[in-house]
């Protein structure tokens, strides 16, 4: 080989050696590259592949509309609208000093310095950064129309819950909020992820699993500019089911109007089916406040309001029943054969039990009266004696039969069950025996006993329908997105073991209460009402609560009603008057005939 070399001698050998050294160096350099690439691809390949995928692949959640809530006629109580956010693409705004100032002319609320900071911190310069949420529609339209002036603006839309009836049904439908840790774990919130909105109270909470629906999503591949290059997989969003409530918006509105500015409850129901036709609990709140993101001030105002607007007192308020409880005492006495309807007691205005005098509301006394008269005039002294004769045991037993002291099973979260006192309870709690005076107090619905308005609706409905305890409900049917009815409420009723003669007696007596007794203010020209009033004295200097529970028409009951006015401001018995106005307005409408 060496013969072929042109030069001879030392120089040539040095040249040859140095060429080989250079060759060796270059070989070594390439070896380094090979090792380095091997390290990147074979040892760390998986990590880099994942990095590549996380920068390219995105899971875009597709929000689904929450199920609608309608009244019995399909009128909207809750639906969804869009909320718009204005965002900018950092890459498009970088070279435009004026962009944010121009945007501020349209959206005066934005803070330029804060926006600059947000844009600077954006993880990807090609992805939009939201500068203002809940932008009103006219501004959105303005920006969209001037796309050329605002090429850096992107409008993002998000579904938002909307309650067209506002505060009319606030504490009935409830409100939405982000799912908390407990809810995320609970089974009824299956498929709910952190950050999702779920029903926090009311119907929204009770039927959350139906209303929620299912979020869709798509996995997409995006290029470095954030443009979608391909959709890898897609799952369409599943809208929630539609709830059709038993509520009739017309009746609801009438009931609300007649209550005016008072605190209290109106419940209207169908005594045969358990349909709740109207449920007014005042004060109330506008659930739209929550849907659009409630401010801290507004929240503390609502949550610390003395009237508890967030609570539904029709289902979660507990009150002494007052004289309305006399219905139960009368039924118990008759059924147990303690008296006959014709049995009389004498009222002198007060009655001595033990060493204490129990007064009648009528100080001068009612004189001698029979049971019907005692109910019509709501004589307390008659019922002290009747109650003592009947005994606490039977009174409590019949209270249970009429549904008191236990939840009615209405489809509403955390129903309260009221309270029925017993001698053994008293002994345990106060270490005191049950005195006859306790029985006397109980007989007129005062003392320890507590009931909820919905229990009273159940009770009066049982009287109206001839002795059946019907489970009340708010949701009449549930329809899925394809229009299939997946739930239809069937009346759930229990016959109370009360004889027909007792029921007939109560019908007559309650009719006369309105005709000529304490409920006369409910009397009107349109419909004949039967019912019972109640006035609950409150400890301290507060005004009494005022009850009216009844049904109409008196001879053929179609509707039962409960009116409770908390701490009435009028000196008169206002609850029967309100009930009378509500029922006359309802019966003035043709549709009642179709009930």
């Amino acid at each position, binding site marked *: 080989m060496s013969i*072929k070399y042109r030069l001879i001698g030392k120089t040539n050998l040095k040249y040859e050696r140095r*060429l080989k050294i250079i060759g060796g160096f270059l070989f070594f350099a390439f070896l380094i590259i090979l090792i380095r690439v091997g390290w990147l691809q074979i040892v760390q390949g998986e990590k880099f592949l994942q990095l590549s995928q996380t920068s390219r692949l995105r899971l875009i959640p597709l929000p689904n509309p929450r199920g609608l809530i309608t009244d019995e006629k399909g009128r909207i109580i809750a639906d969804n609208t869009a909320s718009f956010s204005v965002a900018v693409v950092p890459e498009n705004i970088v070279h435009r000093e004026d962009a944010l100032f121009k945007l501020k002319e349209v959206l005066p609320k934005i803070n330029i310095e804060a926006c600059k900071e947000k844009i600077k911190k954006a993880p990807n310069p090609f992805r939009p950064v939201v500068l203002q949420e809940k932008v009103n529609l006219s501004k959105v339209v303005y920006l969209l129309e001037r796309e050329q002036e605002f090429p850096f603006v992107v409008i993002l839309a998000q579904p938002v819950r909307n309650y067209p009836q506002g505060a009319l049904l606030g504490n009935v439908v409830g409100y939405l909020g982000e799912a908390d840790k407990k809810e995320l774990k609970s089974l009824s919130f299956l498929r709910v992820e952190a950050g999702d909105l779920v029903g926090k109270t009311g119907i929204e909470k009770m039927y959350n699993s139906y209303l929620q629906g299912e979020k869709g999503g798509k996995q997409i591949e995006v290029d470095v500019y954030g443009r979608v290059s391909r959709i890898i997989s897609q799952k369409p969003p599943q809208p929630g089911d539609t709830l059709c409530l038993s509520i009739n918006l017309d009746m609801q509105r009438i009931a609300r109007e007649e209550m005016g500015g008072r605190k209290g409850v109106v419940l209207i129901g169908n005594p045969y089916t358990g349909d709740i036709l109207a449920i007014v609990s005042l004060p109330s709140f506008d659930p739209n406040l929550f849907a659009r993101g409630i401010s801290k001030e507004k929240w503390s105002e609502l949550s610390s309001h003395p009237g508890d607007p967030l609570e539904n007192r029709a289902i979660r308020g507990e009150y002494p029943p007052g004289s309305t409880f006399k219905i139960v005492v009368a039924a118990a006495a008759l059924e147990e054969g303690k008296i006959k309807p014709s049995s009389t007691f004498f009222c002198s205005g007060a009655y001595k039990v033990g060493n204490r005098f129990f007064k009648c509301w009528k100080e001068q006394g009612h004189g001698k009266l029979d049971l019907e008269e005692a109910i019509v005039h709501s004589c307390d002294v008659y019922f002290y004696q009747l109650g003592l004769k009947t005994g606490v045991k039977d009174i409590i037993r019949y209270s249970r039969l009429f549904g008191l002291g236990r939840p009615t099973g209405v489809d509403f979260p955390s129903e309260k069950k009221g309270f029925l006192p017993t001698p053994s309870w008293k002994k345990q709690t106060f270490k005191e025996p049950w005195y006859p005076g306790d029985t006397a107090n109980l007989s007129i619905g005062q003392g320890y006993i507590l009931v909820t308005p919905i229990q009273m609706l159940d009770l009066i409905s049982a009287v109206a329908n001839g002795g059946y305890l019907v489970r009340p409900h708010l949701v009449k049917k549930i329809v899925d997105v394809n229009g299939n009815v997946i739930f239809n409420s069937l009346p759930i009723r229990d016959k109370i073991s009360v004889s027909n003669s007792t029921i007939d007696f109560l019908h007559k007596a309650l009719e006369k209460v309105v005709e000529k007794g304490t409920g006369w203010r409910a009397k009107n020209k349109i419909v004949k009402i039967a019912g019972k009033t109640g006035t609950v004295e409150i400890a301290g200097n507060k005004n009494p609560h005022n009850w009216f529970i009844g049904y109409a028409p008196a001879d053929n009951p179609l509707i039962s009603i409960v009116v409770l006015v908390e701490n009435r401001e009028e000196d008169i018995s206002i609850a029967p008057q309100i009930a009378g106005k509500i029922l006359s307005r309802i019966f003035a409408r043709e549709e009642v005939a179709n009930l």
Partner: protein
Amino acid sequence: MQIYKGQIDRYLLITTIALSLWGLFHLYTISDGGFFYYFKRQIIWVSSGIFLLLLFYLLPNSIWPKFAYFIYALTAVFLMVVVVKGEVIYGAKRWLEIGFFNFQPSELAKIALILSLSKVLSNQEQIKWKTVFSSFGLTVFFFFLIAIQPDLGTGLIIFSVWLILLFISGIHLKKFFILIGAIVASFPIFYNFLRPYQKMRILTYFNLHRDPLGAGWSSLQSKIAIGSGELFGRGIGGAAHTKLRYLPQPLTDFIFSSIGEEWGFIGVALIITAYLVIIIRGISIALREGNSFTGLFAAGFVSLIAVQAFVNMGMACGIIPVTGVPLPFISYGGSSTLIFLSATGVLFALNKGR
């Protein structure tokens, strides 16, 4: 196989053409990422390059030593024109617009310099300081013309090629190390003349993830592209990171990364093998030809290919700063493709002998 003088080196020929065609095919496989236009243009460059290779092989080889200085002077004129009025692309003036072709004189400068250096340094029994300085003068003149474009990468590559040629031609080691020492000592002065983005690139090299959207972005995306190729690559047409443009400059500076993503470690190993074949064949020509013009040209040319390939691959896999030099024979680009294929033709011509 024994290669005789006058016979074309088939290994070298096959390897260079194979690399060019592979580069072309690779361009096609990623062209649905919006690069089809470049693929079509590259067909023209590769075919013209192969034509020039054959043309220069057939031309009388005596023209190269004879016109070496002339070519150098012509290139110098081009370079000066670029400095005065060149196309500004990516913040640098590197191009001369000739019809539909943006010519990059710095690519020509590499070969022009090797031709001149081969002439200066060939057939010297002893490299005198005078020779050292004249070769230094030739190199540093181009270096500055190129570095102020600014194209520091190419500048440094021709500097390395000069040092390699000086070393091979038998410079006394003492002189060589004095020279190296002087160059290293001048680095801090030189650093001050760097453009901010060049300083940034050198700095980010030392802390890659500090600024992923700024200067470190290219480097990081390049590593992701290479790494995600794993052993067998993502398959032909499967280079998603490249196609979705996460990898910047996927046809030129970072074509190695897109090859790594698509062809995996196997593909990278094949490319490196191809370059090693070129180095071995080039050095064996140089060994046979001695420190003649042909020998030094062969050594200089393969050193250029090797150094440039090393710099390109090294920056793609994140072991040297991002400088922006093409991968010889593979990267998209008219000037680079034409020059490398033509110079291969020149090498074959010189190897014919007189």
